[in-house]
């Protein structure tokens, strides 16, 4: 059925309690199915873009992205452990988020410790460590999935991993949206520090920043955001890589501008990608992760050629 231009009227009506001349069924489609999905696409897209900004600053590597560095596969492993093995079973709907966060944190710490040599972060090692960690975690995830006897387990996991926003409900929004709001406030407070950090650890130190403490905190904040977002969206690649670069081309490197603009750009981008995912082969829906990868992988290659020193 087509709801058309009255979508916004319904959303407005629902939000303000105003009655209108729409049927209950129309209202439910818009308010319970379409609207939360659009909002979640915005939260996920904006969140992934912000994570990309922070990771690129912390690692000083323009190619850093939660997916390339294996953080996402860590989150996926955590989430799948929850889905199939019932870890943290007592936590109900938050179990998946907690699992994904812990997995992301584990992967991040692992990649970081592998990439540091004599106190220096080596960009090439970082990417290689990310790839290795990514494969390792994916292998464990596949193993858990395949050794699960229950029917439909593999399908459920695969569908989740491909990244999709279908079936979004209002409850799915709460945790990632809350984390994103708190996260962006914290990060905006650190934006001067991020500017110094992206130049170098020593420069940041001489400008009065406690580099190790800041880095540890940023690590936890980005892992938390990654985990909470991936728990509801599955693997949506390359948003965190693409958005910060496009934004920097327009507004420069100052994080006081890059952070909010990336948030916005990521949100808008993923909302439109999700529209494409729903309509390109309608009524068949394709996972958004497929479209973001199709757009993102060529972008990554272009970026790699442009920044020859990064690898």
């Amino acid at each position, binding site marked *: 059925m087509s709801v058309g231009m009255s979508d916004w009227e319904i959303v407005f009506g629902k939000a303000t309690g105003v009655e209108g001349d729409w049927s209950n069924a129309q209202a439910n489609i818009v308010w319970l199915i379409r609207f939360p999905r659009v909002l979640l696409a915005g939260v996920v897209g904006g969140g992934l873009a912000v994570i990309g900004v922070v990771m690129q600053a912390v690692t000083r590597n323009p190619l850093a992205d939660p997916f390339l560095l294996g953080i996402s596969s860590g989150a996926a492993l955590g989430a799948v452990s929850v889905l199939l093995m019932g870890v943290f079973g007592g936590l109900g709907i938050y179990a998946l988020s907690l699992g994904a966060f812990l997995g992301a944190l584990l992967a991040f710490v692992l990649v970081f410790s592998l990439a540091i040599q004599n106190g220096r972060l080596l960009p090439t090692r970082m990417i290689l460590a990310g790839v290795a960690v990514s494969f390792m975690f994916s292998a464990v995830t596949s193993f858990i999935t395949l050794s699960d006897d229950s029917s439909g387990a593999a399908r459920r996991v695969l569908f989740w991993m491909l990244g999709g926003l279908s079936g979004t409900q209002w409850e799915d929004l709460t945790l990632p949206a809350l984390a994103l709001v708190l996260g962006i406030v914290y990060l905006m407070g650190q934006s001067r520090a991020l*500017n*110094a950090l992206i130049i170098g650890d020593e420069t940041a130190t*001489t400008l009065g920043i406690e580099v190790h403490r800041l880095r540890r905190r940023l690590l936890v904040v980005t892992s938390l955001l990654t985990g909470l977002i991936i728990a509801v969206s599955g693997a949506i690649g390359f948003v965190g890589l693409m958005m910060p670069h496009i934004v920097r081309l327009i507004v420069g490197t*100052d994080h006081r501008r890059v952070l909010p603009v990336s948030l916005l750009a990521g949100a808008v981008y993923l909302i439109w990608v999700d529209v494409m995912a729903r309509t390109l082969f309608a009524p068949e829906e394709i996972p958004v992760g497929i479209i973001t990868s199709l757009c993102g992988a060529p972008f990554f290659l272009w970026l790699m050629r442009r920044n020859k020193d990064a690898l």
Partner: protein
Amino acid sequence: MTLKARGLGWSVAAQKIIDDIRLSVDSGEFVGLLGPNGSGKSTLLRCIYRGLKPDAGTISLDGTDLLAMPPRDAARRMAVVLQETAIQFDFTVQEMVLMGRTPHKSAFDPDTSDDWEIVADALAQVNMLDFRERSFGTLSGGEKQRVLIARALAQQSQFLVLDEPTNHLDIRYQLEILGIVRELRVTTLAALHDLNLATLYCDRLYVLSEGRVVASGAPDEVVTADLIYEVYGVRADVATHQRTGRTHITYFPTSVRANA
């Protein structure tokens, strides 16, 4: 602003990179740190600007323990110009200099008109005001170095640390950079490579060899033919230059024997 370091040491894997360093910089002085590659100059500076934590000794700034100072306080008193390294993310020149205001700012403080005035003054002092909108990555080595000095100036600290500020620069820019720093009349400690430039610009010198201070004092007392041979393994003639009035070193190629 005076800096005093006592018994400073830092080692890695039981090898002492610097050992028992005693060094002081008095208010208004321009002090040079000399020594061959690997003598510990950079390590010593790192300990002072807190890039490394020394495992022995004390450092004080105007009598306050520098090592126990909160980083922000330290950054308000001491600005550092590091050797320029390639950066992957580009800032404009004025954004780069504005970063010098970081230690004066709390989490959500905006840039004030005062900050922009300080940035403009700093850029004017190094003759880079016309470049303020340029992207830092497109500048030449000498221009970059001047911008980094402007950033240090924007920090408005009374003590300046420079790690080989003239490295990889043409001689004209080497003279220009050191001239700019000299005219700032800020208390300065600088690691330098070139002995002739050091004697030309510095009030006092420290010479490091294998992690220890082997000589210190006024340039004409410190830089002698014997010291140069002892520390660098190079024969040289040392004389007072009649135009500059400063100690001038002429190096001999290995084919020329000393006293020949």
